């Protein structure tokens, strides 16, 4: 148990480090501009309509703190961090006066759902196919599956999403291509809404899955083809153990371990893919929010989404890291 506590501690430290570095990078980036961004943003936002002087003052104050312009450099830094730590990014400029945190909270479930479903599907299917392909090397079907998945793999998410949009939106319009659900449907926990959500998620999920499969497939296939020449697999084969049992208990189990680690490492990249996919399909997640915010010059929202993304991805990685020892008994002994 002590060994696990040590492991837990180390992982937590890493989590804090990642968030720290990430948010600092965001801070440094915003300080790359020499001009006064606050006035620029305020004037752009207030040109949208009438706003009360108190609202403008509040906006200016939160912007100055977020941009880190209040007080001396150290105070700027502290003020910035105080806001980020609490999650208070002030009011959104493009959706004034809705607070940024509220906008993000509304969008996060969509992205979380999209990412969870597509990542799970990609990981499971990709590894399964790859594992089978690595073990049954002569199967023509599996080799074909390999070529298919690896063919999609180098293509950027945008293009695949775009092509799917064209095919299923224009050429053969059977699937919806925008929105998270039917536009006029009320948000509720009933089957009609759930069904609508499902149908609307087909294309975004499909584009993420198609591109992602190849990576897992290739990794798993090469892992499996290495593992089949490991002593314990050879020995089990020599003993005449049933082939299916060898595949599941000896080969796949051992090959999946590095893939779990790989999953943690690629969450950042998968997240990137989700952002662009949301944009193409108008899926109301935080990626869509981000792009809209940039176009509207809404700094607070952009910073908010960036910070939340960093924390969310790091937290997901932490979760996977913490689950890993449950799968690998050797870790406890470290």
């Amino acid at each position: 148990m002590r060994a696990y506590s040590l492991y837990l501690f180390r992982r937590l430290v890493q989590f804090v480090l990642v968030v720290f570095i990430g948010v600092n990078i965001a801070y440094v980036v915003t300080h790359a501009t020499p001009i006064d961004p606050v006035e620029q943003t305020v004037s752009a936002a207030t040109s949208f309509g009438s706003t009360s002087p108190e609202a403008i003052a509040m906006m200016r104050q939160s912007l100055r703190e977020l941009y880190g312009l209040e007080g001396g450099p150290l105070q700027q830094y502290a003020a910035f961090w105080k806001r980020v730590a609490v999650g208070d990014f002030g009011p959104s400029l493009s959706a004034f006066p809705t607070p940024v945190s509220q906008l993000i909270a509304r969008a996060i479930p969509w992205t979380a759902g999209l990412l969870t479903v597509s990542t799970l599907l990609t990981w499971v299917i990709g590894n399964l196919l790859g594992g089978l392909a690595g073990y049954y090397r002569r199967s023509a079907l599996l080799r074909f599956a390999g070529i298919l998945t690896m063919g999609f793999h180098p293509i950027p998410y945008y293009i695949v999403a775009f092509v799917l949009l064209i095919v299923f939106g224009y050429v053969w319009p059977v699937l919806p291509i925008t929105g998270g659900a039917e536009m006029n449907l009320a948000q509720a926990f009933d089957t009609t809404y759930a069904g609508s959500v499902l149908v609307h998620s087909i294309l975004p999920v499909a584009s993420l899955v198609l591109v992602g499969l190849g990576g897992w497939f290739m990794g798993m296939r090469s892992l499996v083809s290495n593992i089949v020449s490991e002593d314990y697999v050879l020995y089990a084969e020599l003993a005449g153990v049933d082939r299916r049992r060898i595949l599941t208990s000896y080969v796949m189990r051992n090959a999946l371990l590095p893939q779990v680690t790989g999953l943690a490492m690629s969450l950042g990249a998968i997240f990137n893919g989700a952002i662009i996919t949301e944009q193409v399909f108008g899926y109301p997640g935080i990626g869509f929010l981000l792009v809209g915010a940039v176009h509207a010059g809404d700094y607070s929202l952009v910073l908010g989404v960036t910070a939340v993304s960093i924390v969310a991805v790091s937290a997901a990685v932490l979760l996977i890291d913490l689950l890993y020892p449950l799968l690998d008994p050797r870790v406890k002994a470290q």
Partner: protein
Amino acid sequence: MLKILRDLLRYNREFAAGVALLSFVVLVAAASFFSPYPAADSFVVPPDLPPSWPHVLGTNSRGQDVFWQLSFAIRNTLLFGFSVAILSRIISLVVGLVAGYAGGMVDRVLMSINDSFIVIPLFPILVLFYFVMRERMSWAWLALAMAALGWAYDARLIRSVALSLRTREFTQTSIFSGMSMRQILVEEHLPYVLPIVFSTTMNNINWSIGLEVTLSVLGFTNVDTPTIGMMIYWANQHTALVAGIWWWIAFPVALVVMTFIGLFLLAVSMNEYIDPRSRLARMGA
């Protein structure tokens, strides 16, 4: 290293295919030097013409010849990808080699930082970067930013090569026989490190081009220079697909996909070559 490339070309079909694809792409890029129209000019030819002679890939809604635009676009995109790869190689090599050879606490600290860069989602940060830079955003800046963020994954790979080299017997033998560290690094280890540098460079170029296309399509880069992403961006701005001007999008997409597949094939075949089991089978040449 040259011998490795020659072997790969002769016996590895994937490598040969990758080289063929990339050569084609580079040829198209080279054609840009012979373009009769400057890249930035618009409305030099009748707009919205489908592919026909003399506009073999058609013209777009801005009155530009798609083929010549494409040649500029792919040239800029390739140059961009290449610059990012070179810049980030420097960081990857330094971090990877130092961590691998030094070991101990240095290694642990470097790898913690390294892993942070792997986990952090880079896209929002690049978007933030663009947001802050706006009109002052240039390709040089973007390349620098991407190189400063995208070195981590490759650094880890280089580190594991360095680790395995450091502990191998022939290194110990070289040290005992009185070779200086610099000699060892250059004469003994470099032949092992170069192939992995090569394959990670290919992957990195893919990654940076992919990111550039994505950012450009969203309009988050400098809109004046033609790149593949930019072509798609402008096509979207002019709702090319709805207007039926499919060639404006199809050809850039096709060419960039060719680039990706070509680079990918090169990286994969190089990886297979450095796999120790295939190397053992090749010994005795």
